[in-house]
């Protein structure tokens, strides 16, 4: 033991030398100071990580949690700061990188591949993976003998305490080791020893090492632990006994119940140490290649019956199958922290078929497959591989297959006759490399290929048939209806790969398999598969029970290879089953939280929303008491990550169950004497509540402020800071009300501003900044003045740290924004005192580089401009429009645009105007990036200048015309876009001649070959057309339109869209300039456009049909459209029906209805369906006009509703629904009841589409007939003995309840009393 203690000390020393500080150490307060020093004789090294390296000394100045500074929870704001790449690195560096990249194996598809969540997450987010999915907890509400294995609140708290203390002791130890005080007890010099030697020596020492020594890979791990505990005993901790007893549980430990089994629970909390564990087997693997450390439970030591694989050519560079798998397995573990050996020792060979509980922790999941199979040798398809390994293996396999010796038959078919086989010479000894032999033998477990792209290669030769994943892994589950597994899924779904006899399985196993199948379908399946999987798993949720479900779902969610889509699906599953399980989830609340909480701080907005929804549902299902008792232990967890996420989760709970319910608890937590972490978290909860619920905190504002106010005087800096931030959030949420509630904190905040520096000051300033808008003008003025002094001081702060905070967090901008938006300050004060230093500190190119700073700065400047007037601001920045940095120019442009848009350009004098236009033109001509900022800015500024722009129009137009001629397509495009923007201004300046000229020029450019440019040119023409009108347009419309007709054939979307818009505008306002024949021609072209992918194009085309029909009368257009109903293509028909409906709307239905009702007589199903659909759309569009036509169409609809064809009836039902809603209030009940009688029987149909239309029609009837009529229909079937009848009717009934619950009260049937129950509602009998 002493030896391993020594090893530990060695390791610590090594670490110190390398000066590698894991991010997880950051909460470790004690080890300030000596982190940066380089030991004598050691090579110095650069700071690799700004946070990690400086943190040791000045942690307080850095944020170590996400979003303490900006808590707005806006998408961009809550993202962790992304490391921005410096754009101006020198060339050689780039080349070096390129060469370096090319030298290694790079995945050319790396950029296109969808990233897994784990890949895009930050270090901080990754901590989620290190949390343990905790064991079930006892449900206090169930009246039963508590299950021994379920932990109650007391046990959890005790465990928590224990971890805390252990953490403390370990830190102390580490510190001592660092300080060199740690001495090895035995004092022996370290000797290099084989692991087996030491293992054998140690085995007799404790009787419980049996299991451990049988597992070589993990054998060393507990030993290290043991040795370590001996050390900690040295440092006066009484826990040593616990450590010793632990491995004894290894046989039962698969249960994952740390209440018995402390050992298995430790690794999760022991996050930073994990790496060492993971390393161990790898080293072993390198030292003695003959062992197979990864397959720990199959031990070379005990297994004489084991397959001998000593002859593995492990030294060879190229990996064969045998040396690949074992040596790789530890790597897998290393890459995925949870997959380390934490659980593995428990899978002793005595458990041949491991239980589902083991599957709960991904850590243990890997070996299950083998264990479950009860196989001695790792069967190939059990080997978990990462996709890269799989790829490598597949590649090698293919090479081997190709280089396989030719068989006799093959040779015979190749050679012409006349060759014969010679006898090999006597002295020839064939090469016998076992690995090669193995490779050449096709494994019997071949199967369908996994995903990925294969070159369709040369035809396979016989015998090399199976391709699978390199023929190594069969990814197709035995049930052929299931989707194939992905390589990463192996560990979760491997059971599905085995053929089992269903009848042999126990009920639990069968359930487990079923759940697994559903989950696989949901995860990897096609949408229909997913749908059915989701449905079944939801339906049977209570049957399966919470345990088995969550034990499978949660590990999947913790999987390191999870992708967004998969996570979304799994979260959806949880959401659905939560509803069904209800209070059954109680024991699993913590487990679920561990998995879901990370979603709350995800970068992805939708993930955050999903996370919130789940937690809020969970809170509603489990109840407040359970939620509090489950999450209480996490509040003062040593890990900041856990506390952060817990605080956010608590805020969600508060929003779900109401703030008042949580107040007493919060009060207690924030007053906690025991740990500052608890106080910190408590205050953070309040802050998160404010952010999450906004003004909903108002009723409880006083109470909430009282809860947190003590934090301002806390002895811990962190608590003070979070309190200030919390008050800022509360003030922001309650603005502009509730200043009274903050009375008590004003003074401490005020004092705090004077006392604090750095991050603390930033937080306090933010709080004051948010409080000022709540005050009345007098106070606001006073406070603003005082704060301004400090702000201005900090603008010019020479302190880099302070400045960094100001720039990075943008808090200061925020504060300035608040102060300036208040009435309290005079413009002159800002102009004289604030502006100079503000511009000096912030308006520089560096600020434009960071997207967030950029935004903040633009907003703040615009805000200040409102105070001091636009001239002042624009004058200051206008020259920067000619800056050399494009990004900076963009920022200037955007600021000026916003200022001008808000305040107009009336104040701008002639000189500034000139400068402005000059700058605009420069910035416009110099732009290289494609985005609309410059164009928008140009457009906005020109249009707000209005008539004053007249003087500059010739200049601008000259530039445009010149640029329209440019060689570069992009320049031409920008020029055309600019015409579209300034056309209104030119009109205002009465520059019609110029516009006419532009129109002609653009007309000449219609032959443009770049579609993007052509689209812009069409857009410009459209803009000119729109402002000068159809009559004055040059070229005349009659010339322009025929030129446009062929362009309609262009397949590019932008061209199509702009062209159709232009044509539509002409058809709308200038149709008389063009002959009817030309319009008909265009009609035919438009039919093609109905096929367009883009919806806006289809819509524009359909609208144009309406205009044309109006211009030349509906008959010809209608004839064209009705003919088009006969085509095969569905989308075309649908669009045609819409067009018919539009035509009938624009030309009044009576012009169209006879024709289409006549068309219904055509005995062709497509046409009839089309007519019905047109009717349906028509009724949707014409609304209450339908009252004049209802009696005319009822016979047709009745006929359609009696049709055999389901789809036909479906469309008819839809038409009835729209019709019913349209005629609401016009006294058409007789017709509607008649229709409802035909609609109602459709409830027994199976098609979900039809049922949905049916529900919709009933909803329409509810509106027009009144809910009571529909209720009477429902009552006949609500209690029908057949479920098939009941189910759809309950859907309708529920809609009645949701839509018009009040109206139903008088109409419910009278239910007679029973002896025990009084069912009659006697109040209804009251008669006065």
């Amino acid at each position: 033991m002493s030896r391993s203690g020594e090893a530990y000390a060695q390791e610590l020393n090594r670490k110190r030398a390398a000066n590698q500080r894991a991010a997880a150490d950051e909460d470790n307060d004690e080890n300030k100071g000596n982190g940066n020093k380089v030991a004598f004789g050691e090579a110095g090294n650069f700071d690799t990580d700004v946070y990690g390296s400086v943190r040791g000394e000045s942690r307080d100045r850095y944020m170590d949690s996400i979003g303490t500074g900006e808590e707005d929870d806006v998408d961009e704001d809550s993202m962790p700061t992304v490391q921005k790449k410096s754009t101006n690195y020198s060339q050689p560096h780039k080349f070096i990188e390129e060469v370096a990249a090319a030298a290694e194996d790079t995945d050319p598809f790396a950029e296109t591949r969808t990233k897994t969540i784990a890949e895009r997450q930050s270090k901080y987010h990754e901590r989620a993976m290190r949390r343990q999915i905790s064991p079930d907890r006892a449900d206090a509400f169930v009246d039963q003998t508590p299950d021994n294995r379920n932990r109650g609140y007391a046990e959890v708290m005790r465990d928590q305490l224990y971890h805390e203390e252990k953490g403390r002791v370990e830190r102390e130890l580490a510190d001592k080791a660092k300080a060199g005080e740690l001495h090895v007890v035995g004092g022996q010099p370290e000797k290099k020893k084989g692991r087996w030697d030491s293992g054998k020596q140690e085995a007799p020492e404790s009787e419980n090492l049996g299991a451990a020594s049988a597992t070589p890979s993990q054998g060393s791990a507990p030993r290290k632990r043991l040795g370590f505990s001996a050390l900690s005993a040295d440092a006066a901790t009484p826990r040593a006994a616990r450590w010793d007893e632990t491995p004894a549980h290894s046989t039962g430990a698969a249960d994952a119940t740390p209440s018995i089994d402390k050992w298995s629970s430790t690794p999760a909390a022991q996050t930073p140490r994990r790496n060492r564990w993971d390393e161990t087997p790898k080293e072993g693997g390198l030292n003695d290649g003959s062992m197979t450390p990864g397959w720990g439970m199959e031990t070379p030591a005990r297994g004489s019956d084991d397959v001998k694989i000593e002859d593995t050519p492990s030294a060879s560079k190229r990996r064969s199958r045998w040396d690949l798998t074992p040596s790789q397995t530890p790597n897998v573990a290393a890459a995925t922290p949870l997959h380390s050996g934490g659980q593995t020792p428990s899978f002793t060979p005595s458990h041949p078929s491991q239980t589902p509980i083991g599957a709960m922790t991904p850590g243990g999941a890997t070996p299950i497959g083998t264990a479950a199979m009860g196989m001695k040798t790792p069967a190939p398809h059990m080997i978990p591989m990462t996709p890269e390994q799989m790829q490598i293996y597949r590649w090698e396999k293919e090479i081997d297959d190709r280089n396989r010796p030719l068989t006799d038959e093959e040779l015979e078919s190749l050679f012409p006759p006349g060759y014969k086989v010679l006898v090999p010479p006597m002295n020839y000894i064939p090469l016998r490399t076992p690995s090669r032999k193995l490779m050449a033998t096709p494994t019997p477990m071949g199967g369908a290929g996994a995903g990925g792209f294969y070159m369709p290669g040369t035809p396979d030769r016989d015998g090399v048939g199976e391709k699978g994943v390199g023929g190594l892994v069969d990814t197709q589950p035995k049930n052929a209806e299931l989707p194939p597994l992905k390589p990463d899924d192996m560990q979760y779904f491997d059971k599905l790969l085995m053929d089992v006899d269903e009848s042999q399985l126990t009920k639990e196993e069968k359930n487990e398999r079923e759940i697994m199948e559903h989950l696989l379908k949901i995860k990897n399946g096609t949408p229909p598969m997913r749908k059915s999987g989701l449905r079944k798993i939801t339906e049977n949720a209570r049957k399966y029970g919470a345990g088995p479900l969550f034990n499978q779902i949660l590990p999947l969610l913790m999987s390191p290879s999870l992708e967004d889509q998969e996570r979304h699906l799994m979260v959806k599953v949880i959401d659905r089953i939560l509803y069904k399980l209800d209070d059954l989830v109680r024991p699993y609340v913590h487990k679920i939280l561990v998995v879901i909480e990370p979603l709350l701080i995800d970068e992805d907005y939708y993930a955050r929303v999903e996370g919130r929804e789940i937690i809020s549902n969970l809170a509603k299902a489990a109840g407040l008491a359970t939620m509090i008792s489950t999450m209480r232990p996490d509040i003062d967890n040593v890990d900041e990550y856990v506390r952060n996420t817990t605080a956010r989760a608590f805020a969600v709970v508060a929003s779900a169950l109401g703030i008042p319910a949580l107040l007493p608890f919060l009060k207690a937590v924030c007053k906690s004497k025991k740990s500052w972490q608890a106080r910190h978290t408590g205050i953070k909860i309040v802050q998160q509540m404010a952010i999450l619920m906004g003004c909903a905190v108002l009723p409880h504002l006083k109470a909430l402020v009282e809860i947190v106010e003590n934090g301002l005087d806390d002895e811990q800096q962190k608590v003070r800071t979070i309190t200030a931030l919390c008050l800022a959030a509360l003030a922001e949420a309650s603005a502009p009300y509730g200043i009274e509630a903050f009375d008590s904190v004003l003074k401490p905040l005020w004092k705090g501003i004077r006392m604090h520096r750095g991050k603390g000051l930033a937080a306090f300033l933010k709080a004051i900044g948010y409080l000022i808008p709540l005050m009345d003008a007098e106070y606001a003025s006073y406070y603003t003045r005082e704060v301004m002094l400090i702000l201005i001081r900090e603008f010019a702060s020479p302190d880099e740290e302070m400045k960094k905070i100001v720039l990075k967090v943008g808090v200061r901008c925020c504060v300035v924004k608040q102060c300036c938006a208040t009435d309290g300050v005079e413009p002159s004060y800002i102009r004289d005192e604030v502006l100079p230093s503000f511009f000096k500190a912030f308006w520089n190119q560096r600020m434009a580089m960071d997207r967030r700073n950029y935004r903040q700065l633009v907003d703040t400047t615009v805000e200040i401009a409102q105070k001091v007037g636009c001239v002042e601001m624009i004058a200051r920045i206008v020259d920067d429009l000619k800056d050399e940095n494009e990004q900076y120019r963009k920022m200037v442009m955007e600021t000026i645009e916003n200022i001008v848009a808000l305040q107009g350009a009336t104040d701008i004098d002639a000189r500034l105007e000139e400068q402005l236009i000059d700058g605009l033109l420069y910035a416009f001509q110099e732009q290289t990036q494609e985005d609309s900022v410059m164009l928008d800015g140009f457009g906005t500024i020109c249009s707000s200048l209005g008539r004053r722009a007249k003087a500059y129009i010739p200049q601008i137009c000259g530039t445009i015309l010149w640029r329209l001629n440019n060689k570069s397509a992009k320049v031409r495009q920008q020029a055309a876009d600019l015409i579209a923007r300034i056309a209104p201004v030119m009109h205002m300046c009465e520059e019609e001649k110029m516009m006419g000229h532009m129109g002609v020029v653009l007309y000449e450019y219609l032959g443009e070959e770049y579609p993007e440019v052509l689209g812009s040119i069409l857009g410009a023409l459209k803009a000119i057309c729109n402002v000068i009108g159809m009559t004055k347009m040059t070229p005349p419309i009659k010339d322009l339109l025929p030129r446009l007709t062929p362009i309609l054939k262009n397949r590019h979307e932008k061209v199509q869209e702009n062209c159709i818009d232009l044509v539509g505008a002409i058809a709308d306002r200038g149709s008389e300039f063009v002959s009817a024949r030309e319009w008909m021609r265009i009609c035919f072209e438009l039919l093609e456009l109905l096929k367009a992918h883009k919806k806006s194009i289809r819509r524009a085309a359909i609208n144009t049909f309406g205009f044309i029909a109006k211009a030349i009368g509906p008959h010809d257009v209608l004839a064209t459209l009705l003919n088009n109903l006969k085509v095969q293509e569905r989308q075309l028909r649908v669009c045609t029906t819409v067009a018919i409906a539009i035509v009938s709307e624009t030309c009044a239905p009576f012009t169209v209805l006879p024709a289409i009702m006549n068309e219904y007589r055509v005995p062709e199903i497509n046409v009839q369906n089309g007519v019905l659909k047109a009717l349906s759309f028509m009724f949707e569009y014409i609304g209450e006009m339908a009252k004049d036509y209802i009696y005319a169409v009822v016979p047709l609809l009745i006929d359609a509703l009696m049709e055999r064809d389901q789809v036909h009836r479906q469309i008819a039902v839809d038409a009835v629904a729209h019709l019913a809603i349209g005629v609401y209030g016009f006294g058409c009940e007789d017709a509607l009841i008649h229709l409802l009688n035909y609609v109602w029987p459709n409830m027994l149909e199976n098609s979900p589409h039809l049922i949905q239309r049916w529900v919709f029609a009933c909803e329409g009837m509810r509106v027009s007939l009144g809910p009571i009529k529909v209720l009477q229909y429902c009552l006949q079937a609500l209690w029908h003995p057949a479920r098939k009848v009941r189910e759809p009717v309950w859907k309708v009934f529920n809609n009645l309840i949701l839509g018009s619950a009040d109206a139903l009260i008088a109409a419910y049937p009278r239910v007679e009393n029973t002896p025990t129950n009084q069912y009659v509602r006697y109040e209804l009998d009251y008669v006065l």
Partner: protein
Amino acid sequence: MALPGERFHVLAQLEHLQSKYTGTGHADMNRHEWVVNQHRDTRAFQMSHPGMNTYIAVVENESRARTRFNLINRMIQPCGPPPEKNPLDDV
């Protein structure tokens, strides 16, 4: 114009959406639950419409506030205790 896919999606979720609200029912509901909902709806209706409230107050010869209070109280187990669960129901 919603895509057919979306519509179908809506249908699949309709039941789920409806189940979020009190007062809705499902095919496996029993009489007691249904009638309890009716009772609560009725009383909520009567107390929240001032006219109805006054009417009932006059009939019962109570003050309006008392009537309101009574009506709220009657929403607690309005039909008495739920019937004994029959083990056969679950089958």
